[in-house]
């Protein structure tokens, strides 16, 4: 079959590209979809390691690959869809906070449940347990298919989410190699929040002490009062604390709300970062690079006050393959 000029050119291009990419494994074209999150790429592969903070995560924080991380934590409005989809398969109490998080309300209606966002909290980060965060990632990874399997596997094997008679847990948060969404590891989270590839000048990477590309503590105040974080600002009877309140306070990679909002899960058994739910006198300490916030590994099934900031693979520029 004779190829037209255009087709021949395309064929040659494909062939050349295929040859050029033979060094790296050819991949499928990643068709980008709008999944509702703003993604930031964290590069500077094999960056220098974090020196540690009183031994906490010493030698960690170096990531040997590019990855993307969400600019903001998972919002209550985003979490709602998951809660509405998962309740038929959840074997716990569908009205418990460990399932709904703090800012989603549920009620029995007929044979089922109906869930709503607490008015005014649509754009605030919701809380969820580490196990629920894992199921959330599975569900996203599987294209939001509303079937049992889509919540149980894909990124994390929830079959490992069991507890022994002595109280220890068997949870395994090793992500699958083809995971499309995941809970950040401590390395990924620390790097995205505190590591700056230009900390000491162009191309001279290093670590900050506090979120917001700063060695100074962030000012705890509302934006209109020159605030930089809402950590500890919770007023139980009167507050609105949406994500992105401080658009000018970002990590070196552009993340918002690394301080304040919800403290954030990692798969290393600890959450990080202060929360607006914290006692205000504790915020700065929880913001300190390397300082874990709460031992989530001790109770992976409880909600605590931790939220989720998603991670995903770096953007893939691939080649479509044609069978000849």
């Amino acid at each position, binding site marked *: 079959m004779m190829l037209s000029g255009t087709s021949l050119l395309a064929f040659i291009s494909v062939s050349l590209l295929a040859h050029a990419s033979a060094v790296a494994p050819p991949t499928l074209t990643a068709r980008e979809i709008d999944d509702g999150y703003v993604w930031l790429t964290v590069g500077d592969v094999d960056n220098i390691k974090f020196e540690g903070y009183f031994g906490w995560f010493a030698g960690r924080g170096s990531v040997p690959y590019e990855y993307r991380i969400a600019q903001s934590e998972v919002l209550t409005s985003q979490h709602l869809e998951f809660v509405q989809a998962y309740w038929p398969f959840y074997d716990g109490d569908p009205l418990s906070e460990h399932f709904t998080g*703090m800012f989603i309300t549920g009620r029995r209606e007929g044979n089922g449940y109906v869930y709503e966002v607490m008015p005014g909290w649509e754009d605030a980060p919701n809380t969820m347990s580490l196990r629920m965060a894992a199921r959330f990632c599975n569900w996203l990874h599987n294209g939001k298919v509303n079937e049992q399997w889509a919540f149980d596997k894909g990124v994390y094997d929830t079959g490992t989410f069991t507890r022994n008679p002595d109280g220890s847990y068997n949870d395994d948060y090793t992500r699958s190699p083809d995971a499309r969404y995941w809970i950040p590891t401590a390395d990924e989270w620390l790097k995205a929040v505190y590591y700056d590839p230009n900390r000491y000048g162009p191309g001279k990477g290093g670590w900050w002490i506090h979120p917001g590309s700063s060695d100074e503590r962030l000012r705890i105040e509302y934006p209109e009062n020159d605030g930089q974080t809402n950590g500890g600002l919770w007023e139980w009877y009167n507050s609105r604390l949406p994500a992105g309140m401080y658009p000018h306070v970002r990590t070196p990679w552009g993340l918002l709300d690394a301080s304040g909002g919800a403290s954030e899960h990692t798969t290393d058994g600890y959450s990080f970062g202060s929360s607006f739910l914290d006692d205000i006198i504790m915020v700065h300490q929880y913001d300190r690079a390397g300082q874990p916030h709460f031992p989530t590994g001790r109770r992976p099934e409880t909600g605590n006050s931790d939220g989720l900031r998603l991670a995903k693979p770096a953007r893939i520029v691939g080649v479509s393959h044609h069978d000849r």
Partner: protein
Amino acid sequence: MRNGLWMVLVLCALHSTSAFADIIVLAEVNQGQYPEFSVEYVDGEWNVVLSSTGEDNLGGVFRIRSTSNATDIIRYVVCDLDDLTGVGLYVEANPNANGALVKTVKSITSIGEADIVMYLCETSHDVGSIAVHAIGTVVADGNLTGSITSGSNVTKLEIGGAVTGNVSAANGLIKNIEAGGAIGSGGTPISITAHDYVRRVMGASVHAAISATGTGVPYGALARIVSTSGDFTGSLTCERIVPIDQGQYNIDWNIAGDLVADVTCEWYLHSDFTIYVNGSLEGDITFDLDDGLQGQIILNAGNDGGEWNGTITVDDMTLSGPNYTQTSAQIGGGAVGLAPFNFHATNCVPADNATVTAEPGTVTLSHYGPVEKYGQTTVAELKIVRHPLVHFCAECDETVTGQFSWQYAANGRDIVITPGQGYAFEDGYEYHITPVITGETVLRCQGVAGNPVVQSYDYNFKVDVP
């Protein structure tokens, strides 16, 4: 630099004479300062005294760790510090020893002028008493055996076993007390006291005198009480029982057993709030104000023979048992229902057995607890029958259900019945409204285990226009 750099100055690891692990104390203090502390191993337990963060008293953080998991017992940590800038304290896992945890901490106290902020105390077994300025999180797989006393707030006590010591935040708030075992015991209840509020108390059973002592919004509030398998005994005193922190989980009580505690609410039970008692009411509930009962109380929510034995008083009104006569408006807008719920005769509009002298545009069928339809959309869960006021005869009964529609009110208890177009609650008729409680479509209770059907009743009224 006062506001700037912190550095580790001292890493102190004392080796005990035993074969067991060491306790390590790390100090974060300002540059140029030299902290002072002592660690002694006496009779198999560790004594730690923190004396100074440096001669200028510029504050700092102390970290206490073990080097081997679950072997070290700390008899006491005494903070004898005078730093007016405050001092932080951790009893935490050791990241340099595979996350080793202290086994037990028996006592943490402060005898100096510094405000000690305990960020985290985490053990693999028990925690005893803690008395410092502020308490963040206490995590223990075992029991909380001593008193927790905070000069300001207590954020979270997450205890795998039982809580047997008092918890006090006399000038602040208590957010979460969550225990896998009992909180207090029937023979030895504990006290849980805060000024601002007590947000959440959860245990297998709760035996405690709980109080929020502050007055005036936003103080003096109390939210969620949960006993997962047993009773709530003791007492509870507060101004308001309200949702706290605007989170769904900080709302409602769920008492798996009986409510034996005496509850005194000086202002009100919030209209969005429900107290679920699976078993019986054995204690007394008192609302000091005449509009105090704005929410819902459900007794026998477990639908297993629970009874109304205690007294419920709203101002000077005593609600006499499950068919009390006070209307919701008289007591604050709420209700008390003993499952399965009966209709609330005096709260219906018109009232049960009443004669009205004008055709009502709507009729409200009220219950003592929340109800719902269950079954087919096209089959009614109510039956409406009428007969003429004059010349009553059995053959005069006319089923007119199809002439009406109804909506459930936001409170879940009331069903508002409206005539369809061209129909009315007509003059000259007596109406009888009954629930359907057999078959595939029924009127049933909400918030009750197994959703039993409501009690059988006959709500009736006459329309007799002069």
